[in-house]
Structures are given as structure tokens and as C-alpha cells.
């Protein structure tokens, strides 16, 4: 084994310039992999955190009609394991040509909805509303919310006075999540819609997550025409969208790794060609083909570890750069850049796999070399 290490070590030193190029190619691929994976991971953490913060409910009972009696809130609230129950009305609307969601919530329980105002105040009486930052231009004025004819009732126009602005859902990062919330007091909205005593959504929070599934099943049974969403299913849906972004990232990573692999293959193929005389000599004096293969493999592993670790560090800091770049492009949200051990290990493992796979052919050629073919040529 010592001769394997000796030959590998000396060859690494002799061809350090070329091997540095191969390590650089591996580092570039690994850096991109680590950076994009770290950003994707951070996005998932961020999205999940935002959903948990903005939708504190574990379960949402939702119907297309305003048909859920508010009295049910007390019934559900008295059930075992239930911590809080909040009734609300969610109505699709438009506001100055923009799609919006009109939300009626019990204004006394505003903390439950984790609404944080960036401007103005909360509604105190009927006819007052707070809007998302995306509708922030309406702040301080009157706005007309238009409801189209639907299962909820006939088309109508509702006048509101915008008294405050709340932070956008997911801070406006993903367009899909932008619902242009217009939040008004629940009692007033019920009155306007002629649905006193009824809502079309109920948010439920449980003390123990183990209650989520049984309670959701019970609600499905009690309200067969309504839909029952759990926080977990909302998170899953949001994560699925992030995963789509991940697929796009994976394509970029795959292309970069393929280029890294081609560079490594080219470097190792040239090196193998140059080392044929040396390997022929080694085999002639009795060094086994296995030892030759092991020696080259050792070099490839050393190159890929250097490239992989460099790429891992560069990728992690590159993720910070990417975050800053997104901020510079106007996407200002606090994306968490976390040091994820799985991403690091995956990055280095991928670097090793790409380098070894790209070098297999040159290694096999060298190890199977018949010394006489080369020695006879050199005589």
C-alpha cells in the first residue's frame, strides 16, 4: 500500500497545476449544488415558518357557502385536545381590478392571526378595514370591494375605509401566495352579507398534534360539503411549489456537474495517456494492475475531496451572496441560510461520485495496460 501512496502522492505533486484545474471544476459543481440546495432548504424553512406564523391553525374547515353555524365554535372548543377555535369568513373579491380576498375575523382575537401592522391601526368598527402591503396604496382612503355572484350570494359592492396595512402573506415573495387580504370585523361582514350567525371557515388549533388527524376526520364526517385543510397539508402544498423551484435548480446543478465531470475526464484521460510509459514500467517490475488502479483512484479521491470541501465552503458562502443578490433584485425577505450537514455531506459525496465516475475509464485503461505494448514502442 505504501508504494501506492508514494506514486499517487508524487504524481499529484508533479501535475499539481492540471489537477488543480480538475479540483476547481469539481469545486464549481459542488459550490453550485451546495449554494442552491442551501437556498432551497432555507426557502422551505422560511415558507413553513411563515405558514405556521400566519396560519396558526392546525385545521381549517372551509365551505364555498356561508353555512357553518357560529355555534359550532363552542361545540368544537369544548372537545378534548382543542386549544382555540376561531370563526371567519373568506370571500373572493376584486379591488380596483385586482384580485383580493375579503376576510372577516373577530377583531378581538386579532393576535390569533399573527397580524402585524406596518402602518395605521386595526379596525375598530364596521366599515373599517386593513389591507395587505400589496394594497398599501389604498391606505388612508376609501375603497370599494366588489363581490361577484357566487355560491356565497349575489354580486355586490362593499365600501370600506382602509385604516391600516398589514404585512403581506409570505412577505410577497411568491406571487402564488399573494392573496391581497382585506381584513374587516367579522360581525360587520356577516351583517353586510346577510349571514348573521354563520361563517364559511373555522380555524382550529389543538394542544397536541396527535389530535389533528382524528379531529379533521370527525369534521369531514360532520360537514361533508365542506373541505377540511390541515396546517400540514398547507405546508405540504407550499413545499411542493418550492420543490418545483428545486427541480429547476437541480437541472442547473446537473448541467454544471456534467461539465465538471467532462473536465475531470479530460484531465484524467490526458494524464493516463502521459503516464502509460510509467505504468508500463511499474507493471513490468511487478506492481499489480490493482495497485495501479488504486494509486490513480487515490489521486482522484484526493482531488475530489479538495474540490468538494472547497466547493462546500464556497457554496455555503455563495448562498449568502445569492441571498444578497436577491435582495439587490428587490426580493427583500429574510431567507435563512443554514449550515445543513446533509447538504454538505451530499455535496462532497456528489463531488466524489462525479470525479470517480468520470475517471473510471482512464483508470481501467491504465490498470489493464499490457506493459509490453508500451515498452516495445519505447525501445
Amino acid at each position, binding site marked *: 500500500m*505504501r*508504494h501506492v501512496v*508514494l*506514486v499517487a502522492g*508524487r*504524481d499529484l*505533486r*508533479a501535475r499539481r497545476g492540471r489537477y488543480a484545474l480538475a479540483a476547481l471544476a469539481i469545486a464549481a459543481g459542488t459550490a453550485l449544488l451546495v449554494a442552491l440546495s442551501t437556498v432551497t432548504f432555507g426557502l422551505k424553512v422560511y415558507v413553513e415558518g411563515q405558514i405556521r406564523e400566519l396560519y396558526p391553525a392546525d385545521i381549517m374547515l372551509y365551505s364555498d357557502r356561508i353555512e357553518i353555524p357560529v355555534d359550532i365554535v363552542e361545540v368544537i372548543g369544548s372537545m378534548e385536545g382543542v386549544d382555540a377555535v376561531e370563526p371567519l369568513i373568506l370571500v373572493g373579491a376584486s379591488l380596483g381590478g385586482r384580485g383580493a380576498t375579503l376576510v372577516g375575523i373577530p377583531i378581538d382575537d386579532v393576535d390569533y392571526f399573527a397580524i402585524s401592522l406596518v402602518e395605521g391601526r386595526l379596525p375598530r368598527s364596521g366599515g373599517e378595514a386593513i389591507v395587505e402591503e400589496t394594497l398599501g396604496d389604498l391606505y388612508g382612503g376609501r375603497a370599494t370591494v366588489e363581490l361577484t355572484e357566487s355560491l356565497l350570494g349575489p354580486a355586490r359592492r362593499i365600501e370600506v375605509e382602509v385604516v391600516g396595512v398589514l404585512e403581506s402573506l409570505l412577505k410577497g415573495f411568491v406571487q402564488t401566495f399573494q392573496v391581497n387580504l382585506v381584513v374587516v370585523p367579522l360581525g360587520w361582514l356577516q351583517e353586510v352579507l346577510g349571514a348573521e350567525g354563520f361563517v364559511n371557515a373555522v380555524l382550529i388549533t389543538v394542544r397536541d398534534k396527535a389530535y389533528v388527524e382524528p379531529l379533521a376526520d370527525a369534521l369531514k364526517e360532520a360537514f361533508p360539503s365542506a373541505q377540511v385543510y390541515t396546517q400540514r397539508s398547507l405546508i405540504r402544498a407550499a413545499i411542493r411549489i418550492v420543490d418545483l423551484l428545486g427541480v429547476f435548480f437541480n437541472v442547473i446543478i446537473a448541467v454544471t456537474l456534467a461539465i465538471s465531470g467532462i473536465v475531470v475526464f479530460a484531465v484524467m484521460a490526458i494524464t493516463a495517456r502521459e503516464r502509460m*510509459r*510509467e505504468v*508500463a*514500467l*511499474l*507493471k*513490468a*517490475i*511487478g*506492481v*499489480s*494492475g490493482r*495497485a495501479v488502479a488504486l494509486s490513480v483512484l487515490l489521486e482522484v479521491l484526493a482531488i475530489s475531496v479538495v474540490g468538494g470541501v472547497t466547493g462546500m465552503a464556497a457554496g455555503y458562502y455563495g448562498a449568502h451572496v445569492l441571498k444578497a443578490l436577491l435582495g439587490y433584485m428587490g426580493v427583500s425577505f429574510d431567507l435563512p441560510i443554514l449550515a445543513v450537514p446533509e447538504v454538505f455531506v451530499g455535496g462532497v459525496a456528489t463531488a466524489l461520485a462525479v470525479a470517480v465516475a468520470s475517471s473510471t475509464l482512464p483508470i481501467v485503461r491504465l490498470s489493464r495496460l499490457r*506493459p*509490453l505494448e*508500451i*515498452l*516495445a514502442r*519505447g*525501445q
Partner: protein
Amino acid sequence: MAISLVDVDKVYRPSRDVEVVALRGATLTVERGEIVALMGPSGSGKTTALNIMGTLDRPTRGRVYVAGFDVTEADEGFLEALRLHYIGFVFQSINLVPSLTALENVALPMLAAGYPRHEAYRKARLLLDAVGLLDRAGHYPHQLSGGQQQRVAIARALANMPLILILDEPTSNVDVATARALLTLFREINSVLGTTIVMATHDPEVASIAGKVVYVRGGVVSRSAVKLAEVAGEPVDVERVRESMRRVFELEKELMSDMAGRNELVRRKAQLLP
């Protein structure tokens, strides 16, 4: 008997319709401790015979015995081990690993054979001393002259104390003075270590150190009865060479007794050494 070729043919087929007969019915016996020179013009088949004796090539027909082993159809793994422990090679031009120093080149076969690192380097220094190049131990091949490279190659070939030394035109790339120094060295190696030497050459002066000269012409091997001239002069310090070789031999016996228990080939070799 160190090597025996029995009715060996070697036919190359560079393409489907072309056959080149390199050896035809070659029969040759090399006794242990003998120096044998294969002479003949270029393309006569002497290098082919040398390669077959060195287990680098296989005969098309006939049988080959090396150090008592029938190597005609032996598997490559066994042949690699045999070359590592029993045979030392000095080729005409490709001899040293360019990225290794002279010392490392000499130590390499010993490390491959499983010698402890410290002992391998200790013996490599003795061998470099024997060939008069201890002061060049840290030099890379490109920093050495052709003659010095050949001498390092000889030291490397002797690293595992082979029973057989195979030399292919060992003096063809060096000047006359260096060639004579190398010949003296070969003779001393043979005399002190009892190493069997088989060499291919077309130079009568080189062949003059051989106890037996064999002519190869058109792939046919024939024994020569001609006694050739002695080497003129001895431009190396023979006493120093002998002393170094004796020290190498003593060290080798010590190391071999340790390794013999682990390696059957080494155990058998230990029995065959003087």
C-alpha cells in the same frame, strides 16, 4: 536451472492476414548464476526471447520455466508477483518513474513487495551506494545523465534481490566509459550475489562478460562457441561495489527471514539464494 525455453514459437499477428514469426522452435537453458548474452541483429528475436523469459510475453507454442515455475500459462497475478520477487529488469530506455527521486525509484519495488518503509529506504541507499550514486539520491530522473539513470535502474532492478536480472541493451544509450562501468557492475553483481543475468545486446564488448553467448537469427536460437574479448579496463571502484553488495545481501537476508513467513514466493526464493 534459472530459465528454460523448450521449443518456443512466438508468432505476432499485427493484422488478420499478416503473421510475423519472432521465435521459431527456440530452446535454451540458463543455469543459476550464469551470465548469458543474446546476440543478433535488430529484429532477430532476441528482445522477444528476453520478454518471454521475463514473463512479460507468452509463447505461442512451447513451454517456459522460470526459477522452477512453469510460467507458460500462469495467471497474470502470479506473473506480477514473480516479476516483483524473482526478476529484475533493466530496459533500454524506459526505466524510471519521472515523478520519483532516484531513492524512491529504487525503494518502490521493495515497498510494493511489502518491506517496512524504513528498511526499504535503508536498502535503497545501500544499492545507490553500490552503483555510485548515493549523492544523487534526491535527484529526479531528468536531473540525471543517461548513464546515471541506467545505474539507478540497475539499483532498482536489484531492490528485491532477484534471482534473475534481465537486461535489454543495457549500454546502448550510454557512452563507452559508462558502458564499461556498467559491465563491471553486472559482473560484480553476478559474482557477489550469484544473480543469473540474461542480456540482449548486439555489442560484442557487452557480450564479453557473459559465460555463454547465444545467437538469435530469424527467430532461431543457436549457441555460440566463440569466446569474445575481455572488457578493457575497470572504471569503477570494484572493492566499494563488492562491499556495498555484501551489505545489501546481509540486510536482504535479515529482511527476507521476516517476510518469508508471509509470502510463499519469498520463502522459496530464500532457499535459492546463496
